[in-house]
């Protein structure tokens, strides 16, 4: 029995040794661990190119779950207000969240617009429309937009993420999709963008905050870096806060 216990202890020690490979903070550089919404991956990687920042990109609600479960984050950047509020309510945030960027929905069609979509109007009725499911942030924004316009949308698919919507359009499977301008910009020539004035008037907001229990000094250094980089964010289609 003691042999068994000793064996178990050895395995546990070996496992914990594997897990403790974390970098020590370096005064000269920013080395925060940043949990950020997937849509921020391109601008954040560029902003942090010269630092030691570690990123984990995922859906905002998934990230809140991970932080609540004890994941070692210093900074949380959310793609909508709802998830940041959720994080604050769960006591996961140190200090006040800051709004740092905006984004709004646009229509995208495959190159050439084969279904002849003209905007958020009757032209959608004969087209295969792909949207986000109401459960995810982009779907919530889609629902609000449809309500504002008094339109009853009849999508052929409600996808689990905005990238899945975009994929259905770039592959030509769907005729038209509702995605964020940033995603549409990232898709380049594969899609055509049709703007929606009503969506621009009610943008989705991006929030950033230090995580409770994390390294707040490092966190603030990264947040300052983001706030000082509106040009990078604009280059990817984000609006200023």
């Amino acid at each position, binding site marked *: 029995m003691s042999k068994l216990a000793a064996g178990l202890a050895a*395995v546990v020690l070996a496992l914990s040794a594997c897990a403790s490979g974390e970098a020590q903070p370096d005064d000269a550089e920013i080395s925060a661990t940043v949990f950020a919404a997937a849509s921020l991956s391109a601008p954040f990687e560029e902003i942090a190119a010269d630092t030691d920042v570690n990123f984990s990109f995922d859906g905002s609600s998934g990230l809140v779950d991970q932080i609540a479960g004890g994941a070692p984050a210093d900074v949380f950047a959310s793609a909508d207000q709802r998830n940041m509020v959720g994080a604050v309510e769960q006591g996961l945030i140190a200090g006040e969240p800051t709004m740092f960027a905006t984004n709004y929905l646009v229509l995208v069609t495959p190159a050439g617009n084969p279904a002849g979509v003209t905007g958020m109007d009757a032209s959608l009725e004969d087209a295969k429309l792909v949207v986000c499911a109401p*459960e*995810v942030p982009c779907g919530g924004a889609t629902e609000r937009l449809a309500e504002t316009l008094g339109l009853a949308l009849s999508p*052929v698919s409600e*996808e689990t993420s905005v990238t899945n919507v975009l994929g259905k359009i770039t*592959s030509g*499977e769907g005729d038209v999709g509702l995605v964020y301008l940033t995603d549409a910009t990232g898709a380049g020539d594969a899609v055509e963008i049709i703007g929606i004035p009503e969506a621009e008037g009610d943008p989705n907001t991006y929030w950033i905050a230090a995580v409770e229990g994390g390294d707040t000094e490092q966190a603030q250094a990264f947040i300052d870096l983001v706030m000082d980089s509106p040009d990078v964010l604009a280059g990817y289609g984000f609006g200023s806060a």
Partner: protein
Amino acid sequence: MHRFPRWAWAPFALGLALLAVPLLGMMARVPWGELPALLTSERALDALTLSLGTCLIATCLVLLLGVPLALVLARSRGWWVSVVRTLVTVPMVLPPVVAGLALLVTFGRRGLIGASLSAWGVEIGFTTIAVVIAQTFVALPFLVTSLEGALKSSGEQYERVASNLGASPSRIFWKVTLPIALPAIASGTALSFARALGEFGATLTFAGSLQGVTRTLPLEIYLLRETDSDLALALSLVLIVVALAIVFVSTKIQNWRRDG
């Protein structure tokens, strides 16, 4: 008497804990009191009916295509046999999202076959047919590989005797080969059904996600996780129970085959 070294117990315990604790943890979080109400909600019923219906059709297709496929593979000689066997096995180890992409570029609107179908007015994307195709694609290899192995190990002596007695190949198949292979077919079918039921990545990539049309149980669970984790856990429990039942039945059949 020592049949294995005593230190094997340590990794045994760790391995068992790794596999069993998450399942038990899930059981602890399932909202048992609300289970009946949750599972009879419209969303849950839509996902359950869709998953069950598509999996039954997919499993029938797997049987219709898989049994002859395994038979030809098991009874043929030549360089092409191993090539075909590799092709048939690949979907089993393919990441599901890659399977979905492969199906998309084949049956999608601009795909190899889909483009011609589209010209005839047939479009598979976003339909329940796409779900069935994805499930069949990922489940078929499970039946073929397990049945081919069984057919090879059972040998051909009975078929040879029947042939010498003047039976036609078709008659031999129905009266000799099929009855001998029945346990292997049954356990292979059970595994295929389980794989079809769990299909997620290929469906998401290829078929889309709409309640009652393409949103099967795994897709619904993935989506509900965002907002309604109680219902997500309740539906997960359904999949776990079905998985346990299938593995139990399949193991029983295999033991019976070995003993009998």
